[in-house]
């Protein structure tokens, strides 16, 4: 297998020190995009609270949230059911999108995604084992398994992909993720088939769903995800420096090793936390950083910030679609993201210049 030509994610001309007029214009445009993304996110949040098997108008949503005068059924739908899953979508979307941005920056691989690389599979495997073998049932118990599984899977894919030695082979990484996913999902399905009573529960969990996940899941896991999100935002500067090459990064005073370790931990916490919340959801981490890079350019701080806002938009929209397409029933959100994301992967691989395997 030979290497794949990719553009380095950051160029010196767009770095933080380039104080030209075009950079200033670019800076203003970035704030504009970020503001636009925040507006989009607000719209998605309201839509997520309003749309469902019992539609509620936006005014009703506001009234329900502020304790105004609304029918009891509306309040139950908005506050009881949709508020937790909207918070869930917010956290999961931000976590997966930022994890994807870090994976892509770290591996210099535009096709990387925690789901495709098998990180979420590792997390999901650990949780499935915890549920099926150890009998852990509470989310506060299995969040540790989710994080640990994600960490181990990240390291395995990292080693298999030949990363950390300068040259990362994209095909190698993807195949490593595929092999890892195959092994882990094989073992999970072995467990599932040997104990059919666990069958439906594990299947629903494995498909990635926001349904029937309330505050009991969100409360114990959210702190990890929030700390992970904040910590990852701080990584942007170091990732920019590392993107210039190991030597330049060292000269700029950035520790390459510390950045890599920090990135791996960030990926594990974000992807593992998201998986603990909603089960394995693929392709969010692939699509969102691309959109973010497309509008902001290669500065990782902006890519990360914009991903954190656009990720929830994508996940919330996917979750709304999941509620609408089979109305009044619903499909797991992971299925919707797979249908949205797989075509994006195909388009990306067709439009990038890549050398043969």
């Amino acid at each position, binding site marked *: 297998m030979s290497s794949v030509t990719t553009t380095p994610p950051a160029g010196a001309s767009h770095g933080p020190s380039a104080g030209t007029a075009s950079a200033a214009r670019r800076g203003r445009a970035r704030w504009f995009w970020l503001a636009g993304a925040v507006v989009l996110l607000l719209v998605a949040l309201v839509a997520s609270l309003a749309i469902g098997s019992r539609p509620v108008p936006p005014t009703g949503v506001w009234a329900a949230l502020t304790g105004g005068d609304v029918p009891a059924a509306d309040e139950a739908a908005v506050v009881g059911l949709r508020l937790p899953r909207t918070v869930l979508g917010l956290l999961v979307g931000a976590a997966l999108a930022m994890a994807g941005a870090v994976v892509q920056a770290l591996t210099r691989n535009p096709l990387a995604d925690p789901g*495709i690389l098998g990180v979420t599979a590792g997390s999901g495997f650990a949780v499935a084992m915890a549920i099926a073998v150890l009998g852990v049932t509470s989310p506060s118990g299995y969040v540790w398994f989710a994080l640990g599984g994600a960490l181990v899977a990240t390291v395995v894919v990292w080693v298999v992909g030949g990363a950390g*030695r300068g040259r990362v082979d994209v*095909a*190698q990484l993807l*195949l490593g993720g595929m092999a890892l996913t*195959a092994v882990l999902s094989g073992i999970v399905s072995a467990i599932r088939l040997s104990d059919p009573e666990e069958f439906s529960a594990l299947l629903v969990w494995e498909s990635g769903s926001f349904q029937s996940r309330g505050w009991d899941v969100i409360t114990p896991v959210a702190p990890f995800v929030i700390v992970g999100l904040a910590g990852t935002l701080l990584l942007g500067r170091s990732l920019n420096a590392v993107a210039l090459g190991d030597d330049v990064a060292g000269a700029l005073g950035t520790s390459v090793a510390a950045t890599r370790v920090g990135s791996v931990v960030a990926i594990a916490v974000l992807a593992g936390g998201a998986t603990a919340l909603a089960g394995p959801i693929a392709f969010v981490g692939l699509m969102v950083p691309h959109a973010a890079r497309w509008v902001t350019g290669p500065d990782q701080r902006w890519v990360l910030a914009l991903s954190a806002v656009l990720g929830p938009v994508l996940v919330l929209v996917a979750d709304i679609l999941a509620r609408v397409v089979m109305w009044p029933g619903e499909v797991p959100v992971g299925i919707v993201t*797979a249908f949205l994301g797989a075509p994006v992967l195909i388009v990306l691989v067709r439009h990038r210049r890549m050398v043969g*395997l």
Partner: protein
Amino acid sequence: MRRGGVVVTTLAVVAAVLAVAGLALGDYPLTVAEVGRALLGQDDFATTIVREWRLPRVLAGLVLGAALAVAGALFQSLTRNPLGSPDIIGFTTGSYTGVLVVMTVVGPGYLGTAAAALAGGLLTAVVVYLLAYQRGVQGFRLIVVGVAVSAMLHAANTFMLMRAQTEIAMSAAAWGAGSLSLVGWEQVAPATVVLAVLGAGVVVCAPLLRQLELGDDFAAAHGVAVEPARLGILGIGVALTAVATATAGPIAFVALSAPQVAKRLVRGPGLPLVASALTGSVLLLGADLVAEHVLPTALPVGVVTIVLGGVYLLAVLVAGARRAR
């Protein structure tokens, strides 16, 4: 060639030993002598067990393993890529989708399942090929498109399993895991006949394959019609996989790993077809014995091959990364 002969003989002996073990082991264990007598029909009870229950399964392991391995060898040789196997490009996931559609709409049944597996697999292969096509198909793009299409089909499969009634979902999931335990004479007999015909086709095509391995220009200079030959070989590979999948469900990674294992054993140039076929038989029979008798609960063989094959693929990738250093 001497080494090749030794390898082929050894593999054949191992396959025979595994086959006898498959016939002898079970809830009603038999000795080797009893198995022999039962095969000759000298003991009514044991004859029923061996001939009717265990023989179809063992035969399926031998024949389907060989078919998958040869299909993998053909794909890998044509794509000149050790990873160009039908499971990586989404073929098997597509078969599963086809079967799920038919099972939920029409209901279970061998003929419907077989036709659906064939149609689903072929359709997926064509779609993946076309989506990866850009002035020719190159390995990396084919694999990534395969990963993407597989992800979509996997999502669709999960969705259908969740929507289906529990009994249909259970039987579809059992098929989808890839199992030899449900295979009887009515499935093995037609599959073996079809696979034998396809095998004859492989024997005819083998010289063309060797020419193509040396490069398109070389083959053309030696009077090979390159594109028709490639299409014909591809068709045989697809048909081999489809028949195997239709019979036993999607059995992952045998097609991927068997040709490469055989190549390492023989150490010759190119992919050895006979040794690959025997390696496939040994792998599938061995995995089935593990699935049925070694693990605490009997599991579908596909679960064992997917875990073994995934570990094998990881090992290949790690070794490759180490060499690249």
